[in-house]
């Protein structure tokens, strides 16, 4: 990191900050998760087996690309093994919603409709559980 | 100007004035302990450590030390309400609780500022008993350190470091264990101490005192086989009277001579005599060097430095070992006297060297060390056996219940008691070089000096300079008193930037009149200037004011020494210097 490129103006400093912000983005977000979109991907054995890893990566990359402030975390088995991969989405100020059978295409739909506009999409699993 | 109220009295003072001084202006004397100043000389010690001088300043949370708190517009100050008195008394009791209770046998008893305060505050009980700090007592040839009695006023540290730049003493350790001491708590003797005694002259308690030789002298006086000869330095007569309640600046030459006779000395002589002798030798050396310099001799070193002051000699041996060939080789008057007394005079009266005891009364503590130096001994027998200070002489006179004030005025004995005005002024800063100029001028020009008093060489500034016209030869004279000032001139000499032909240096502020063995001036610089004035008035009263006109001196050269600078004069009256290195290590080898 000591690339000797001096920061010569305030604009330089701001540019530098943009460059390095990604490093700690996650930490900033973690401080106030309630105010952000929270995406929890169930990443237990069954989830991973049915492709949760790809789904999680998709969320991480796409949310960033589409400039949506969100926290993507993994969690253990939510108990809906029949519907894996499952994803829980919490919009700020709203109750969590769990979607089942999520693949990258479904994830794209969730981002575009539910996360961006708050419109519900298919695949919601009824809520009768407590998050651990 | 700032107006403030002290104990309901309005007082107007200049901005920057301390509360202490503002109070004095309206006659309110706030007690102090660590505070000390010689204001004409820019010497001041105010660490704010003793907290005896605290006063209440309205609106302030804590009591303020009046010695270092500046007066501000509209201040309302109380110097003696219950809060202040309780605080002062408590602090004083605390200080006493860490101080030995041996006042009855303390060298400082009666002169101790702590004792005075205890009297003033009417201390009757010591409720804060506890551990007292204990240190080793350290005796050097001149000074005794009994730091159990140190109250950490830091005056000695200030004198030793800031004024004298000797750096022998520093506060060491921390908290309750803190004390002022040489490095590694070594003996003063092994430190770079010059024995100038300025630490002793400012110590408020008995922590620093001189080595007392009175008993040695009593032993000599009671020994019928000994002939005891005494010499008195010029500055003593200008200060001794203070110890007997006389006004500072009262000359007591005659009474002093009478008292010494009463005490039983066989011959009462005058160091002024050997001061004249010093001028003969040193003045000759000065002229030789200057003439050599003018003749283009590359081996001649200029400036020439005076060498009468043993504190100064110690200082340059410690700090300027590379410049040992610069000072004059002439011995100090004390040692010239001893050398002549135990040779010329002893022969004259037919007394063997071993049967003669030479005592000196000096304003100085370094003289005690000087007379013990090996160069000043013949077969182990010192030229001067004992040197006591003005204070010790006063104590001796009192001990012998001599009614000093009612003594008749008596004259010194012959031949070593005869002196000129030039010898007398040796006691003041600038006096040695003035005396040298009087003689050197006439010897160099062959003309009679019109104006004997070189007033341009007088004064109290730490460093002075003047150009004296030797009939077309302009001589640049430098004068320094106080070793810190001397260091500045010596640094110039070392770096080759000195513009002087001759420099006079005295270790003590004011010269010998402010010596470490004089009656305590307690920071009153008025006392020093009055002593100086007394010395100059003695000079004026003298009929002969030039050393080379002293008949006894002339006779001495005729009968015994030959010419100034002769071989015999050299062997008796000149000396050499030795490098002394500071620090622990040299001592550890030996």
């Amino acid at each position: 990191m000591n690339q000797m490129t001096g920061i010569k103006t305030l604009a330089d400093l701001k540019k530098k900050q943009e460059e390095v912000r990604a490093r700690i983005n996650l930490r900033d977000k973690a401080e106030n998760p309630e105010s952000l979109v929270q995406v929890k991907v169930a990443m237990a054995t069954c989830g991973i087996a049915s492709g949760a890893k790809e789904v999680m990566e998709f969320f991480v990359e796409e949310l960033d690309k589409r400039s949506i402030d969100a926290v993507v975390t993994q969690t253990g088995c939510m108990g809906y093994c029949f519907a894996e991969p499952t994803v829980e989405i919490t919009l700020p100020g709203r109750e969590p919603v769990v979607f089942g059978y999520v693949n990258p295409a479904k994830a794209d739909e969730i981002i575009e409709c539910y996360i961006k506009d708050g419109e519900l999409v298919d695949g919601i699993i009824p809520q009768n559980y407590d998050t651990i | 100007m700032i107006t403030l109220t002290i104990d309901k009295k309005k007082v107007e003072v200049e901005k920057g004035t301390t509360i202490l001084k503002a109070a004095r202006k309206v006659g309110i004397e706030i007690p102090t302990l660590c505070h000390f100043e010689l204001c004409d000389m820019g010497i001041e010690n105010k660490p704010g450590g003793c907290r005896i001088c605290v006063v209440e300043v309205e609106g302030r949370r804590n009591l303020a030390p009046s010695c270092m708190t500046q007066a501000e517009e509209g201040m309302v100050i109380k110097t003696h309400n219950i809060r202040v008195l309780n605080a002062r008394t408590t602090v004083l009791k605390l200080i006493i609780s860490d101080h030995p209770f041996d006042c009855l046998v303390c060298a400082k008893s009666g002169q101790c500022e702590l004792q005075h305060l205890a009297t003033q505050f009417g201390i009757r009980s010591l409720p804060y008993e506890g551990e007292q700090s204990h240190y080793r007592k350290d005796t050097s040839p001149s000074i005794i350190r009994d730091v159990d009695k140190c109250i950490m006023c830091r005056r000695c540290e200030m004198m030793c470091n800031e004024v004298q730049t000797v750096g022998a003493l520093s506060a060491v350790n921390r908290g309750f264990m803190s004390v002022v001491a040489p490095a590694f708590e070594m003996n003063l003797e092994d430190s770079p101490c010059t024995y100038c005694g300025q630490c002793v002259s400012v110590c408020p308690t008995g922590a620093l005192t001189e080595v007392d030789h009175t008993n040695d002298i009593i032993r000599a006086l009671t020994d019928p086989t000994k002939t005891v000869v005494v010499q008195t330095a010029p500055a003593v007569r200008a200060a001794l009277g203070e110890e007997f309640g006389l006004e500072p600046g009262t000359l007591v030459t005659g009474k002093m001579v009478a008292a010494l006779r009463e005490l039983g000395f066989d011959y009462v002589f005058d160091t002024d005599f050997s001061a004249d002798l010093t001028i003969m030798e040193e003045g000759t050396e000065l002229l030789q060097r200057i003439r050599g310099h003018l003749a283009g001799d590359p081996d001649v070193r200029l400036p020439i430095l005076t060498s009468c002051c043993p504190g100064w000699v110690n200082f340059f041996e410690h700090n300027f070992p590379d410049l040992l060939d610069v000072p004059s080789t002439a011995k100090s008057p004390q040692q010239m006297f001893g050398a002549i007394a135990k040779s010329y005079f002893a022969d004259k009266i037919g007394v063997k060297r071993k049967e003669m005891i030479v005592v000196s009364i000096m304003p100085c503590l370094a003289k005690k060390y000087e007379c013990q130096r090996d160069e000043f001994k013949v077969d182990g027998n010192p030229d001067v056996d004992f040197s006591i200070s003005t204070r010790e002489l006063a104590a001796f006179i009192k001990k012998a219940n001599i009614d000093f004030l009612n003594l008749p005025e008596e004259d010194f004995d012959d031949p070593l008691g005869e002196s000129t005005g030039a010898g007398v002024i040796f006691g003041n800063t600038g006096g040695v070089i003035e005396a040298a100029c009087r003689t050197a001028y006439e010897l160099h020009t062959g003309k009679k000096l019109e104006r004997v008093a070189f007033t341009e060489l007088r004064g109290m500034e730490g460093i002075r300079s003047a150009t004296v016209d030797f009939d077309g030869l302009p001589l640049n004279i430098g004068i320094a008193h106080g070793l810190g000032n001397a260091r500045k001139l010596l640094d110039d000499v070392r770096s080759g930037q000195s513009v002087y032909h001759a420099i006079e240096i005295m270790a003590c502020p004011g010269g010998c009149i402010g010596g470490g063995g004089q009656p305590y001036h307690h920071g009153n610089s008025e006392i020093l200037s009055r002593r100086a004035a007394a010395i100059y008035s003695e000079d004026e009263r003298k009929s002969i004011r030039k050393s080379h006109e002293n008949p006894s001196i002339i006779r001495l050269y005729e009968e015994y020494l030959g010419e100034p600078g002769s071989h015999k004069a050299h062997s008796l009256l000149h000396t050499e210097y030795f490098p002394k290195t500071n620090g622990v290590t040299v001592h550890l080898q030996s």
Partner: protein
Amino acid sequence: MSQYKMHVLVCAGTGCHSSESNLVYEMLRDEVERKGLGREVQIISTGCFGFCEKGPIVKILPDNTFYTQVKPSDAREIVDEHVIKGRSVHRLLYTDPETMEHVLDSKHMGFYKKQLRIALRNCGTIDPENIDESIARNAYQALGRVLTEYSPQDTIEIIKRSGLRGRGGAGFPTGLKWEIAGRNEADQKYVVCNADEGDPGAFMDRSILEGDPHSVLEAMAICGYCIGATKGLVYIRAEYPLAIRRLKTAIAQARDYGLLGENILGTSFSFDVSMKYGAGAFVCGEETALIHSMEGKRGEPSNKPPFPAQSGYLGKPTNVNNVETLANVPVIILKGADWFSAIGTEKSKGTKVFALAGKINNVGLIEVPMGITLREIIYEIGGGIKNGKKFKAVQTGGPSGGCLTEEHLDTPIDYESLTAAGSMMGSGGMIVLDEDDCMVSVAKFFLGFTVEESCGKCAPCRIGNKRLHETLTKITEGKGTQEDIEKLRNLGSVIKDTSLCGLGQTSPNPVLSTLDNFMDEYLEHVHEKKCRSGQCRSLLYYVISADDCIGCMACKRVCPTHAISGEKKEVHVINQEICIKCGACMEKCQFDAISLLNDYPRVAVAINN
């Protein structure tokens, strides 16, 4: 640039470092590499999280999982279970002492709930040895704004309006301090950061320097701009090697980037920082002593005025601020004076960091808004008293402070209220004491500290504190008298009133405040020769039970002072006046007949006589 999905923060503060958190960090990193997760999971060593009681701490983001007392050997399980499978490692989670349940994430830990972290905002979040992480968290933005948009006076106004006061102890308004230093003309001025945190039991400055050094450097530069100084000095304790290292790294990185040095951010402002080391003298926290120490002298304080703002380092105008104070400055500039002054009480704005220690469950570093009560701190953040003991007092302000009791628990904490209660804010040490602590001994402990740390310059502090300590010792040894108690009071108030510097002016506080609040304990020690908490050894009494003693003479033979009397097969008695409490008899007795009481055994004495 790939984006990490998960950040694993490992505390590398001194506390956790002492329990091998560096090894935890290395093991986690190796494990993640081995599992091929290096591009997804970032392992970062950070500054202090504050929860030192349960260190080493590992925190996993974004889900805020908070693992405590993690050992290097736990690294594999964390990676296997948490990182890969997304399951928390339950045995490493923090257990709520009240509910005895595991707490999943730090947001729900009582310790963090009531905290508001401003000065500590980046501690435990960023890698302090990487300037980029600081820059990402707005480091030097405030400096940039000040240099390009505000005049020095504008900036000082912001600080003044924010109400920020010195966090080192006395609470002098920071903006005003800067203004005074700015007003004094000189060819050279200095900004000094006082990082000589000598208060035993306080370590907030160290944590800030270890966890977020750039915030302090930035604030020093802002101060330099305001007062017209181009040189900054950090005076730091040599006992803080880690903080020194991090600060050195930070200075080097900031210089590399041109954020320290000549013409910062293209402006005409130049500023550089160098370091000076303390050497173990508490008094050097006092600013004049600190300056003398920086000049290579004994760290003795001198009278004020002149204040350092007039004549400080090398005689030049010098502004001295404490680390925590400085750490607040950049946020205030960025978020505004109003934002800051909305936090706290009327006269004390913002937050204060406290080092919570002693007999409390959650020892650690906390930052709370001014005005919070002691009760909230002790019971909600601190998790209550250890081992279910009874709360007795809380000592704030370190050796300069005093003890607060039950009745002060609901006092809102700020500079004024603590002073009014006989204590002080100090640098923020907060030591909780329980029923097992003897208040006379606690006062003696603090005085022992002062006696050792007094510089010796002024008489009341040098000798007075020694006498206070001796008198307290006498009382704890059961030799005290009523007169001694009165002596303590007078001496204490005179030392406060007459001492030269802040050290002496506050050193009797532990005595005076315990005299005020716990006089009954003093009286017990003096009149009943009793120490209720059993802390004073001399006030414990060995007693032989008449029921159990068989008169075997074993104890009598072993007693070094012949304090035990009694004939063979008769009950033995210990003469309390002679007993030196060596315990030899108790060790020797095979019949458990000797016990230790903390009440003077009057009955036994009566029999004896």
